[in-house]
């Protein structure tokens, strides 16, 4: 079989197609930014996870240090059990505080880790004891209205005095 110019064009075409797939995977997708190779698992119980989703980032000081890998409902404590995998380059003290935060006003929710002062570090499979639930807007508005109402009562009392 002889080589032809057609072969060259087909080779170029296949190279371009595979190259486009690689660009999509590495530059557009998250394959290049995060690998599950070197990571350890942490869990935490949250009273309310709000809109947290699997694959949401775990950040500390704004830097992505891991991802949420699974979210389950715990029938023992009746709250949400969040399992996250953390890059093993980053170690956190035992008393690290995990809270569910929102990036921007209507952005996606993520887990923020605030390091504590303990000398012992969290190991793989450990549970973070200090957690903070997501802010649910309805609850916040309800509390605000309730506070406003009781504030109004307080003012009346003050005027009487």
């Amino acid at each position, binding site marked *: 079989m002889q080589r032809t110019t*057609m*072969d060259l064009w*087909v080779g170029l*075409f296949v190279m371009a*197609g*595979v190259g486009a*797939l690689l660009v999509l995977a590495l530059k*557009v*997708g*998250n394959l290049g930014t995060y690998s599950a190779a070197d990571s350890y698992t942490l869990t935490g119980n949250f009273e309310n996870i709000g809109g947290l989703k699997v694959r949401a980032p775990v950040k500390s000081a704004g830097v992505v240090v891991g991802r949420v890998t699974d979210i389950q409902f715990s029938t023992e404590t009746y709250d949400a059990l969040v399992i996250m995998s953390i890059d093993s380059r980053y170690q956190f003290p035992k008393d690290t505080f995990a809270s569910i935060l929102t990036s921007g006003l209507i952005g996606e929710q993520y887990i923020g880790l605030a390091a504590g002062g303990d000398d012992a570090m969290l190991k793989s499979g450990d549970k973070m004891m200090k957690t903070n639930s997501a802010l649910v807007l309805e609850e916040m508005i309800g509390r605000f209205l309730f506070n406003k109402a009781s504030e109004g009562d307080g003012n009346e009392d003050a005027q009487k005095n």
Partner: protein
Amino acid sequence: MPRRIVTGIQGIGHRVIDSVWRLGYASRFFLLTLLKSGTSLRRFGLIIRELYFTGVLSLIIIIVSGLFVGMVLGLQGYETLQRYGAESAVGTMVALSLLRELGPVVAALLFASRAGSAITAEIGLMKATEQLAAMEMMAVDPIARVVAPRFWAGVISMPLLAALFSAIGIFGGYLVAVILIGVDEGSFWSQMQGAVDFRYDIVNGVIKTFVFGIAITAIAVFEGYDASPTAEGVSGATTRTVVTSALAILGLDFILTSFMFRGMG
């Protein structure tokens, strides 16, 4: 009068039976193509020749339309998102809509009208000029020699073309959103990378293009092989290829999407 009603009903019944007949024949033809593709896979030169005609010659239309689709998505996405102050999410919008839907579907529609119609016309004309019958006389199986290489070339080139379409489209969105309008480049790419998942978005899109590639080329080779051996028959078959593939692409896309994307994640 009653006679006319009877012939009308007969006509409907005839059409229904005929289309079921054709569907069965098409399925048998598809299976036969798969069974006989062993020889053509061994003679890979045949597939390379067809890859040139279906893949390389479709490159221009795929690249140009991908660029324009991406640019339009960038413009429209910016127009809508900036109302909510979320214009940095324009990269996410362009990438997700291209990778999940527009890339596979629009590339497949273009591929069906560019390459599918050419395959049908070629095979139909071979049949009309009795080249296929001549091959059979020489004990060369036309399905193995003519149909199978075209089928596999289409199945191979469709995912590659769609990947190119999506990549070029995202570049077009980048051109409009970042260079022309001035959305921040860092947040354009980083939000995109944060939102696009390899398994969930990219692999699902590639699976879609494989299914579309199989559907388009199977329809194209069957319509060509089944065309009545006249000039009129070939033109009718070419039209049917484009129409049937377009409907098959959109229908299959709905089915695949409902399997793949269930609003999780």
